[in-house]
């Protein structure tokens, strides 16, 4: 068999394209959920931390450190294979979603927090002395400046974690890689993997290019 017949076999590709496409939709849905929930909870934790309640802050720092230190794959495996022992058996989709969202939450909290603390105290004081409340100061003065600082590191981190959706295949989630892998074993031909790779690249190359653009667009001018 020639190289083309092996890796670009049109018949095999046509047969498994619907599976890969379904996998692509799972990947997109999962990635969107991870990004929204991960960034949302990360920002919420950073805001909670700005209240300055000591024991709460220790707890936040510990959780954040833990999810930065643990490889995402072991979190997925722990949730999927471990939690049933506690009486809750999350689906592959939920396990992957929760794990990646926790990881993104940890990284996002750290970045948001660094952004928040980068705003000089004078800004707080000035805003408060004009009569704005704590929430108003945060929403109208501090956050707009802090978020701008955090955009480049946050974008890159979010992209890196979103690529982790492929890890779901380890717990039998039929996202792109999972669908492609089972198609390879069913057809005994690697063409579905070629198709899956193409799907990832089509999905992520624009995202990476966007990240590159964001980095230059929001770069701090010295």
């Amino acid at each position, binding site marked *: 068999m020639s*190289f083309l017949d*092996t*890796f670009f076999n049109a018949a095999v590709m046509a047969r498994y394209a619907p599976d890969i496409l379904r996998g692509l939709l799972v990947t997109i849905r999962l990635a969107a959920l991870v990004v929204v929930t991960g960034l949302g909870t990360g920002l919420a934790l950073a805001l909670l931390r700005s209240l300055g309640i000591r024991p709460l802050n220790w707890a936040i720092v510990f959780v*954040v*450190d*833990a999810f*930065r*230190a*643990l*490889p*995402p*794959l*072991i*979190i997925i*495996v*722990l949730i999927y*294979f*471990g939690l049933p*022992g*506690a009486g809750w058996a999350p689906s592959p989709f939920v396990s992957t979603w929760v794990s990646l969202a926790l990881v993104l939450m940890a990284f996002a909290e*750290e*970045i948001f*927090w*660094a*952004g928040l*603390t*980068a*705003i000089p105290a004078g800004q707080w004081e000035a805003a408060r002395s004009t009569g704005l409340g704590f929430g108003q100061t945060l929403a109208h003065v501090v956050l707009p*400046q802090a978020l701008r*600082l*955090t955009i480049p*590191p946050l974008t890159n981190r979010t*992209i*890196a974690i979103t*690529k*982790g*959706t*492929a*890890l779901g*295949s*380890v717990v039998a989630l039929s996202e*792109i*890689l999972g669908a492609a*892998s089972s198609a*390879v074993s069913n057809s005994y*031909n*690697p063409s579905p*993997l*070629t198709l*899956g*790779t193409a799907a*990832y*690249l089509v999905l*992520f*190359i624009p*995202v*990476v*290019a966007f990240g*590159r653009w964001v980095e230059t667009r929001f770069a*701090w001018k010295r």
Partner: protein
Amino acid sequence: MIETFLNLDILRAAWPVLLHGLGITLLLSAMTIPLGLGAGLGLALLSTVRTRWVRWPLIAYVDLFRAFPPLVLLILLYAGLPFAGIEMGGFGCVAVGFFLNTGAYYGEVLRAGIESVPAGHSEAARATGLSRLQTLIWVVLPQAIRNVAPDLLSNTLEVVKLTSLASVVAIPELLFQSRQAQALTYNPTPLVAASVIYFVVLWPLVRLLSRLEHRAIAGRR
């Protein structure tokens, strides 16, 4: 609950296996980090060449491997290439896959570092009679590396975590060993123990990083 997640008997039985796994994890890291740094340095140095014919393929290469989820790359090498008659084995696939992946990331970090050193420094160095290579080694690189030290370290942490993917191609590192032990005992204690080991090993690095990064973001304004 404690019987399930922290079963001491099972922990005792699984401990040697887990330690062996940790050894392999550290070994994989010790192999991947220098490989990736070397590749990254090469890429970063190439990117200082101003010619379009070098720059564009380089950007394409780096973006390609930043867009490629490392697990997909690994599976492609492990399950795809044998169809082309290329069998590298689990270890070979891990070495090649991680080399391509981490090289691109280190390359991007080091490129940013080199670009952060003002051109005047290398011009001044050249004017004092240092050669190109000497300028690079004694003037540009030391400053470049210091400027991006947090990113280099953060990338290195990611590489250590990345080695857990090797479990998918049956390399007996920490995650693989803990999954084996869990499957054998029908008990999640080994998984919990492996998580704790990862945490204990990597926590100091995370702490250090969070300080450095904090300073980096605060210093940008």
